[in-house]
């Protein structure tokens, strides 16, 4: 059984390797000057006054794909939370208990808790101007919240983490994305059209719907990460 598994594995890898060796010369050499998609994407970003061309691709040109990707993240979080619920025969989980925390660790934790939260939402808010956006900022802000657990203890984290509210926030993020898309359908005639006035390239109020979509994605990802980690933190497994 085991030998058969390795045989199949090596057969697959050898086939993949041979195909790869034949395929790679057909790819454009790395560092080449010809990037037709780049030229089109940059032109589209300039037309819609979005300084961060990556955000322009994600939330303007390919906004519909991003809706799909946001939905994948949403359902993955939903699935993980459903799987990590306590089963019927299990009592309420023992909550993670923290040991002694050094005063310096505590101080650093609380200082960085503030900084990380601000940086996270700053990355979301400027997603249409500078590198970053809803996905990255949401992850930073959501996981930064757990510094309260590192610095203090679990009850501190529970106090600053209203799970009911976060549930609503996560759902509101997805609904908001679809809502902005439908608003585009009503105002401009097609789903997820960038229908808001574009502003001036580089200004804070620019890029039209890109900034709005960044904000709702940031809300969804930030809330989702906190809910996800809350379930993982309450797992108290003893493996033998």
């Amino acid at each position: 059984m085991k030998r058969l598994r390795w045989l199949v594995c090596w057969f697959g890898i050898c086939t993949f390797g041979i195909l790869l060796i034949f395929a790679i010369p057909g790819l454009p050499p790395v560092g080449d000057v010809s990037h037709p998609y780049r030229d089109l994407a940059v032109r589209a970003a300039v037309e819609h006054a979005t300084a961060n061309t990556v955000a322009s691709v994600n939330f303007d040109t390919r906004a519909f794909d991003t809706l799909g990707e946001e939905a994948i993240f949403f359902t993955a979080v939903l699935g993980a939370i459903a799987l990590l619920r306590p089963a019927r025969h299990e009592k309420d989980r023992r909550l993670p208990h923290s040991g002694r925390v050094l005063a310096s660790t505590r101080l650093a934790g609380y200082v960085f808790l503030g900084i990380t939260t601000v940086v996270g939402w700053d990355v979301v808010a400027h997603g249409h101007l500078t590198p970053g956006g809803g996905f990255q900022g949401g992850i930073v802000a959501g996981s930064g919240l757990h510094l309260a657990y590192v610095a203090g203890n679990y009850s501190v984290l529970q106090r600053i983490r209203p799970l009911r509210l976060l549930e609503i926030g996560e759902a509101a993020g997805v609904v908001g994305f679809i809502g902005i898309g439908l608003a585009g359908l009503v105002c401009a005639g097609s789903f997820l059209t960038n229908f808001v006035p574009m502003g001036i390239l580089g200004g804070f109020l620019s890029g039209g719907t890109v900034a709005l979509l960044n904000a709702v994605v940031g809300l969804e990802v930030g809330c989702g990460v906190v809910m996800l980690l809350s379930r993982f933190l309450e797992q108290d497994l003893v493996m033998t």
Partner: protein
Amino acid sequence: MRSMAYFPYFVAGWLMVMGAVGIVWSRNLVRAIVCLSVTQSGTYVLLLAIGYQRHAVAPILGAQDENTRPLVDPVVQAMTLTDIVVSAGVTALLLAIAVQVARRHRTTDPDQLSTLTG
């Protein structure tokens, strides 16, 4: 120099193959999930290698002298970005499944999960 122009593609292929070998090799579900992440990293290298241009700057307008210097391809960067986020979500889902398996069967060794329990 000519061979170096294709080197990142081989790195991408190498990462994918090593991740796949790791999944087959794994005697622990958590390790298999980490190996899946390595496999996915191969796609990031592939995408970024396709979009790279020598002496080009980051695809942010107005930050640098992009009038004189070209930008790297933002399309593949956008794909890589969403890929990373989605893979983080999917990794969390897989880890949740691993936790559930460990809870039900008291093992995370895939080879010992052959018996059916109802």
